[in-house]
């Protein structure tokens, strides 16, 4: 008896569809793989070249001889404080504005103007933010080039992304929760405080921290507003070392230090340049993983 004929044999068109499907899938897979090559390429290259100088002493010592010798402590702690001060300035403004836009704002021309401002601000190049920072904070408000001016500039630069991240996190909280609260006579603020914020805070905080750490890696916004190639600070005690800068001091920062050691100074040993870059990347990765850990922790406490 001959084998039963197959009523579901693929036609020529079906065979072609299958072929195209597999080509498309592998093409896209290849592109996805391409994504991770630069990441590992950069990391390997940096840490390989920087290996000779990387040590706890390198992190803990301050640069001497215009960065040719010594370590990286002053720029490192400078960037850390820059992140911290920016965070303190921008978080309340960005988060509260985001809450207003998402929870309170009526759908009218004024809200549309605010939304347009947020979108436009996000598209402004960082060097233009830097010039704005000089004009607004350093000169007009007469704050001078200092840590606070630089942090304010970073704050202005990051606020659109922080507002957007806040709105998205709030919008992810189901409407049904708000309806339930309102129908028991809770005010909007009671609803936000007791239900909406506790369920969106993980997304909000992650967005804020990620965006600020990204901005802190940039050179442009701090270039004219407070970063210095070198600073004279007292380094007598541990306290001095942990808090070398006042808000109105000029400060060293990793991104600007990298710019200086890589470009401005002759005879700079190569590993000092790579060391700076490696520490900058490591700091940003550290902040990112901190924010991811925070998100996982807050999510696990999330209540639905």
């Amino acid at each position, binding site marked *: 008896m001959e084998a039963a004929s197959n009523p579901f044999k693929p036609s020529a068109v079906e065979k072609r569809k299958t072929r195209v499907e597999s080509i498309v899938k592998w093409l896209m897979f290849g592109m996805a793989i391409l994504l991770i090559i630069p990441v590992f390429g950069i990391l390997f290259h940096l840490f390989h070249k920087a290996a000779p100088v990387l040590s706890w002493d390198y992190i803990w010592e301050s640069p001497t001889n215009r960065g040719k010798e010594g370590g990286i402590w002053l720029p490192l702690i400078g960037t850390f404080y820059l992140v911290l001060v920016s965070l303190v300035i921008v978080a309340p403004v960005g988060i509260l504005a985001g809450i207003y836009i998402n929870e309170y704002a009526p759908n009218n021309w004024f809200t549309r103007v605010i939304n347009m401002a947020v979108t436009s601000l996000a598209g402004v190049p960082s060097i233009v933010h830097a010039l704005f920072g000089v004009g607004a904070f350093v000169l007009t408000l007469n704050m001078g080039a200092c840590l606070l001016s630089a942090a304010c500039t970073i704050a202005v630069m990051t606020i659109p992304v922080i507002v957007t991240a806040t709105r998205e996190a709030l919008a992810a909280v189901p409407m049904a929760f708000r309806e*339930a*609260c309102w129908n028991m*006579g809770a005010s909007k603020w009671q609803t936000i405080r*007791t239900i909406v914020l506790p369920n969106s805070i993980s997304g909000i905080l992650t967005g804020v921290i990620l965006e600020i750490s990204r901005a802190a890696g940039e050179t442009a916004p701090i270039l004219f507003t407070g970063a210095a190639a070198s600073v004279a600070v007292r380094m007598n005690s541990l306290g001095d070392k942990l808090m070398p800068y006042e808000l109105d001091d000029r400060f060293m920062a990793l991104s600007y230090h990298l710019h200086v050691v890589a470009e401005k100074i002759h005879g700079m040993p190569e590993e000092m340049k790579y060391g700076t870059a490696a520490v900058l990347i490591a700091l940003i990765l550290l902040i990112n993983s901190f924010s991811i850990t925070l998100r996982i922790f807050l999510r696990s406490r999330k*209540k*639905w």
Partner: protein
Amino acid sequence: MADDTQAFSIRVNDYNLWYGDFQALHHVTVDIKPGIVTSLIGPSGCGKTTLLRSLNRINERYGNVKTTGEIKILGKNILDEDVSPATLRKNVGMVFQRPNPLPISIYENVVFGLRSHATRKELKKSTLDSMVEEALTEVGLWHAVKDNLKRRATGLTLEQQQKLCIARLLPLKPQIILMDEPCSALDAAGIERIEELIAELKARFTIVIVTHNMAQAKRASDECIYMYLGEIVEHSPTAELFVNPKEEKTAMYIQGRYG
């Protein structure tokens, strides 16, 4: 006037409502009695949910809404300037189509309303505890959850969630409970038990229930309002409306000719 307040707990008079330019309710005039269940039926988009949401002014939270006319609850026009929406909603609670317990503990769900209407000092733990027990007992949930009051309410079964959503209204001592298709997310056994619960509660509250399910309107309500395209077509005792409708449109709808 005092007589009216006793005879009817809700009196809607020539009420119109617009969402932007679209008029969703046209000259609605209807009186709803306390101590019975009144159902609102009609095809999708006929305005029954809109009317329900007007009764505790929650519509205002959904943006561009304009109204004219009056809605008197306990003798007071709730559209007056001097009415606090929060106090109104405390007296006129709502239960939703999809059970929506808050993502907090069962205990906190029941006392949420109290907490939003009082300062922290005014609420003694012992008062709250007894209110939680009373409310959950009333909806038949106490025995199932009394050992798990700290558990998240979102982990309950849908039927339990819906009972909790009714229980959390009770500590506020409302006069009126509005229900927007309260059984549509439940299975047959759940529907039966929620309907039994409604029947138990109706003596003490004015209950208005929106439903798509005509069999449910027949089973669970004493009076029935049929709406079509934003107007009230007929308002009769349920038995009468289903057996002997006065209006041609009602007859066509309950026979299943449209809707």
